[in-house]
């Protein structure tokens, strides 16, 4: 048992005690016992596993009288559209009551709690609407505005929605989710970890035979394939090792088509597949002898970032930190074995921030690193566009690297977003 679990258990013990005190109290004394319940509940739900631990207690908490005398006491009249306001409130108690209400409805929706005022179907419907309205809470950390008004509290609704969506099921909000992902990707964000984990969730839903998506989920395929199977060579998400092997048996035109496939996926979505750097490495290591002239040397000098073995050595600590493949696929763990399982391997094998290590040796904060890289990347993208435009032949797609084989891909490297994350950051 870790210290973290210990802390959660300690808090839960306090919460149960406070709830029992509230339940026992006479009506006139309840207001005096309530703050302790709400405050402890807030601390529980700020814990990463807090909401899961809270859910089985939701019924006891409601029956103790937490909602008594408020609108939340009659769940049948609650309006989903109001939830973003209460969850975004600077008042901790408002946020906590709203969160507790959602958790209680979750228990109702799952039939664990027969509520006298609302049916399981109604509760389920209400929750899907609430999740759809608050989708932004599933994407990434708090915004500046939220941090300013809520501070640490801003994490609470995030924990809640992570849990709610897991329990209610992504399939119920998949269309809104896909729309939101595309909307965000349009802006070519630098931080895409949250988006990638959402896409992973969608892929899990699609692959799960127990989930009937029906007509929904259209438009997700492009997102999923951009991450897991952007080209013919990795169509069925074979895993990094298998893909590398496969590359060895390809002829130049097949490699060209692989490169084109990656580029297209990257430009369509702004996402980079973990297979992409595998191809790049392969191409560098297997240049035709004719190309081993001054060109590539110059290229090497410019881009030690791509060549961790011959250039700058990545910091082993950083490498270790990116090995946690879990961040790529949270939520997938509970599912059955699935083609995506290869992804974990892919993530772990990808280069670990070599460029970053070189640029900001002391920094360990991801945000900082990315910020420091951003200007260079922008410039790089412009260079890529210019280069592509210059080399574009008639009928070819815009923005695609063209020219004789692998070297050109290499030459375009400054613009490739893989320098950002190595694990598929956006360009």
């Amino acid at each position, binding site marked *: 048992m870790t210290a973290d679990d210990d802390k959660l258990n300690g808090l839960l013990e306090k919460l149960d005690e406070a709830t029992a005190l509230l339940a026992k109290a006479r009506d006139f*004394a309840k207001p*005096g016992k309530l703050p302790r319940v709400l405050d402890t509940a807030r601390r529980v739900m700020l814990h990463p596993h807090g909401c899961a631990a809270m859910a089985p207690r939701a019924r006891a908490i409601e029956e103790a009288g937490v909602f008594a005398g408020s609108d939340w006491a009659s769940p049948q009249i609650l309006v989903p559209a109001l939830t973003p306001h209460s969850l975004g409130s600077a008042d901790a108690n408002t946020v906590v009551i709203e969160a507790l209400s959602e958790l209680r409805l979750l228990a109702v929706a799952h039939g664990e709690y027969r509520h006298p005022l609302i049916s399981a179907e109604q509760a389920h419907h209400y929750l899907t609407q609430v999740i759809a309205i608050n989708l932004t809470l599933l994407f990434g950390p708090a915004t500046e505005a939220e941090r300013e008004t809520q501070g640490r509290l801003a994490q609470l609704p995030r924990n809640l929605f992570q849990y709610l969506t897991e329990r209610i099921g992504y399939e119920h909000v998949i269309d809104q989710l896909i729309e939101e992902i595309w909307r965000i990707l349009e802006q070519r964000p630098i931080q895409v970890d949250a988006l990638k984990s959402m896409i992973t969730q969608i892929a899990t839903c699609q692959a799960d035979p127990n989930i009937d998506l029906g007509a929904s989920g259209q438009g997700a395929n492009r997102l999923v394939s951009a991450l897991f199977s952007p080209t013919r060579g990795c169509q069925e998400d074979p895993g990094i090792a298998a893909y590398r092997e496969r590359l060895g048996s390809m002829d130049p035109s097949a490699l060209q088509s692989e490169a084109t496939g990656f580029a297209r996926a990257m430009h369509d979505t702004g996402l980079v597949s973990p297979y992409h750097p595998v191809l790049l490495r392969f191409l560098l290591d297997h240049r035709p002898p004719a190309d081993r002239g001054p060109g590539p040397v110059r290229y090497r000098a410019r881009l030690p970032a791509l060549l961790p073995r011959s250039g700058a050595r990545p910091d082993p600590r950083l490498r270790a930190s990116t090995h946690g493949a879990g961040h790529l696929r949270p939520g997938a763990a509970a599912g059955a074995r699935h083609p995506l399982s290869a992804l974990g391997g892919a993530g772990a094998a990808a280069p670990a921030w070599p460029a970053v290590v070189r640029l900001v040796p002391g920094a360990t904060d991801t945000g900082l690193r990315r910020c420091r890289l951003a200007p260079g990347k922008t410039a790089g993208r412009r260079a890529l566009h210019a280069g592509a435009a210059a080399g574009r032949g008639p009928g070819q797609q815009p923005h695609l690297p063209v020219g004789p084989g692998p070297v050109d891909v290499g030459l375009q490297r400054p613009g490739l977003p893989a320098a950002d994350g190595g694990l598929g950051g956006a360009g």
Partner: protein
Amino acid sequence: MDKDPQKGYIALLGWSLNAVEAAENFDRRYVVVAPDWAEDYCQKHDIPYVSWNFERLNDRSLEIAETLKKMGVNVAVPLYEETVEWAGAINSVLLDNPRLYGQSLLLRDKALMKRRAQLGGIRVGIFEEAHDKGDVIRFLKRVNQTLLKLDGDPNDPIHLKAFDKAGCLGHRVIRTPDEVDSIPDEEFPVLMESHLDGWEFAVEAWIHDGKIAFLNISEYVTLGYSVFVPASPDLEAYRPQITAQIEKLIKAFDIDFGLIHPEYFVTSDGEMYFGEVAYRPPGFKVFELLERVYGFNAYQASMLVFDPKATPEEVATFFPREIEDADGYAGCFGVYPRRRVVSKLEIPEEVEDHPYFESHELTPPLEETVTKRTAFGTHWGLVYFKGPDSHQLRDLLKHQEDLDYYV
């Protein structure tokens, strides 16, 4: 809870929601005697209630005793310092014992109280009444002369306290004659005491039939800031001496029943000095702290020992064993804003993440400018802690003084 008509009928003097709740869950009939602002609330929640204005003193003051007597009430329990002499007066009628009124006056006036203690052979510091600033300066000089201080030596401070206020209200520390000017004239007369160096602590003792039924020692970490129960083993080591002191006090004040809340200093050579004693529940929510560690309700305990119909057996079974039955240490800290201008309440993260932290009852600030504290002012709210180690709890409470809760 079902009320037992065979047991006493109790009047609670003063309004305390926690006391009402305790009475509601106790097997004795009760009635709340409180000012008329509590009437609506009591009607709404079905709380037995008699309206009484404790600030009005006139020929009709006997009425309340007669009203309660007619209702069949057996005893009145004071909940606040201001209702102690009312309880004495009412009980002298209800229990037909005129001496109880005199006793309550003794317990209300700090100068009388000290004198009585001194007569009873209890050690007290030097004290005197002051009627104006001149008295204070004279006392300060005399005390320091007695201590054989030379000119230029820093003075030993003296303490000024209102005669009849609870706890730290109106408590000032004076070190130099200049500081005397800061005392407003309307605060006089006051009680002046020499400063006692030592460890200050308080006791809550429930007395039934002239004997101690339960004795708790509350350890002050910093006076006016923090307290925890039960006391650390270092202080509990003095329990036999403390018990002997309380027995002296019971004898000196002729106390037969009720809850007393005296304060003592223990000096480094183990000598006990009496500070003061109150005949009411202690401040700083010590009752709540006791309930957290011992599980018994201290308000019910008071009602029990006041009740003339309570039997010794009932009293014996009600109370837990001292120290042994406590499941940890519970303490609280009174928060004062440290800055002159504050905009919001922010519980420090280190507090919130501490395993001992339980809850708080702080509210967001109502105004931005913090009024300067004169004397030992009133805190803005309490923060509660509980944990298994008394030393860790003590250090934690001490550390709170360096933290900003209001920023």
